[in-house]
């Protein structure tokens, strides 16, 4: 039960039930859709980039508690970051949830995203947590495309 409590922490449940920055974004200049064909999770990320900085970011779609909370917390964590900073954040996040190199200096950078550390005990759920981030990355790299976890 403890590892389940670690996975489904209150903040994750809160963000999955009441996702922040949910919906369309007027004036977005980057966007991409992400899809996990195994479970049907599907997200679209809309971003307004100005001067190399993520000024606004919102998302739409549906998925499990982990992927929805991840998308919600990703929008909070990446807003105001430069594109390079956002990508670095994804790298640190990915290391956190795959249990790869738990570098303590990452803790500060990850902030609220540390709540996902329980995912590493559930390897099959890593894709759920990373789907929104892969989508973000795709949106930043080229305008409009669909990425898949497979």
């Amino acid at each position, binding site marked *: 039960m403890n590892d389940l409590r670690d*996975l*489904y922490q*209150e903040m994750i449940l809160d963000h999955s*039930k009441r996702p922040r920055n949910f919906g369309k974004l007027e004036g977005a200049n980057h966007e991409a859709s992400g899809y996990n064909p195994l479970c*049907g999770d*599907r997200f679209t990320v809309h971003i307004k980039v100005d001067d190399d900085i993520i000024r606004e970011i919102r998302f739409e779609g549906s998925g499990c*508690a*982990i992927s929805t909370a991840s998308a919600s917390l990703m929008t909070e964590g990446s807003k105001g970051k430069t594109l390079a900073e956002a990508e670095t954040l994804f790298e640190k996040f990915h290391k956190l949830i795959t249990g790869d190199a738990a570098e303590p200096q990452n803790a500060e950078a990850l902030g609220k995203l540390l709540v996902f550390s329980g995912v590493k005990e559930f390897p099959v759920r890593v894709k759920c947590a990373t789907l929104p981030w892969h989508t973000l990355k795709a949106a930043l790299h080229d305008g409009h495309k669909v990425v898949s976890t497979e």
Partner: protein
Amino acid sequence: MVTSESTSKVRPSGEGKAVLPLDIARIREDFPILKMKVHDKPLVYLDNAATTQKPQRVLDALNRFYTRECANIHRGLHYLSDQATVDYEHARTRVQRFLGAAESSEIIFVRGTTEAINLVAHSFGRKFVGPGDEIITTVMEHHSNIVPWQMLCEEKGAKLRVVPINDAGELILDEFEKLLNPKTRLVAVAHISNALGTVNPVRRMIEMAHARNIPVLIDGAQAVAHTKIDVQELDCDFYCFSGHKIYGPTGIGVLYGKAQWLEQIPPYQGGGDMIISVTFEKTTYNCPPHKFEAGTPHIAGGIGLGAAIEYIDNLGLDHVAAHEHDLLEYATRRISAIPGVRIIGNAQKKSGTLSFYLEDVHPHDIGTILDRDGVAIRAGHHCAMPVMDRFGIPATARASFACYNTREEVDALVRGVDKVREIFAR
């Protein structure tokens, strides 16, 4: 489907004879994997619609083949090859009797249901489907009974027509009737839905199609382990199933085809065993079933499937069906009593599959939480996305039963779903 009172000691069989119920404790002893622990909890395996576990008899048959008679079939003059050929062909005869087919040459060994359907789409499609023709399937099909037909239709300029379902998850036969027309070349329908558990009225559908001389393929992947099949009584033209869903090995399955069709349609793949003679000027094809079995087949798999069928024949499919129906009724009662649960698929006639949706909780989260208690279910779209769309949901949680499951395991499932609610209530 046999129905029975859950508490009665004696159950009515299909023939109306009183028979003793199955000794589930003894059956469980036959399946070594059921002694396993998962996350330190006893395994509760409720994902039988995905694949069933294997009894020792099947494991022994595989082991015996590889340790005592491993050889290629249909070609060697030596002892081992002869033994292997005899056993492989014996398995074919066993499948023939199991399905009630007239001839063993109507039984083609394939990799599974998917390959069986692809074989028909390819070979029947190549000969009998042309531009403007139509194939009928249904909205509740597994992707493997949709995509091969879409590919065929795209290639041939034909059209795929889809029979709709009602809110209970039953095919609407009036709509099916309307779709049948002179351009229809084939009807492809599941005997039992993998996502909803609906038992389709295939006998009636075959009659309706045959009244217009339209052949019918039945996807029996979810049926063969749960209800007695008699292909001659059904009068279907093709019937497909997978060995691994009937306690047999993976990688082996069966296509039954009426002799008249197997003679008319061209081979599926070219290679060894499917020919009588080969020259660069002309190749003469072998007769069915070999015409459709190019290359060295899954010999051990075929023999293992034969052993699986022997196992289920000994239990008696009527008894298994009654037991699974009892579990379905019990599980339906217990699961529907949980607040926020919606059962997906409420057909009058259902097999031992229970799909459900828990308000505000994604099925994947249910699957993860149950898994931590050793309870294995399927969470997802069950390779049946159109039917998920029909019910306006992305996925369901699905528990599916087999001969070795118990009411105590259903209780474990219910406790798990209660825990899901507890975790998500925070």
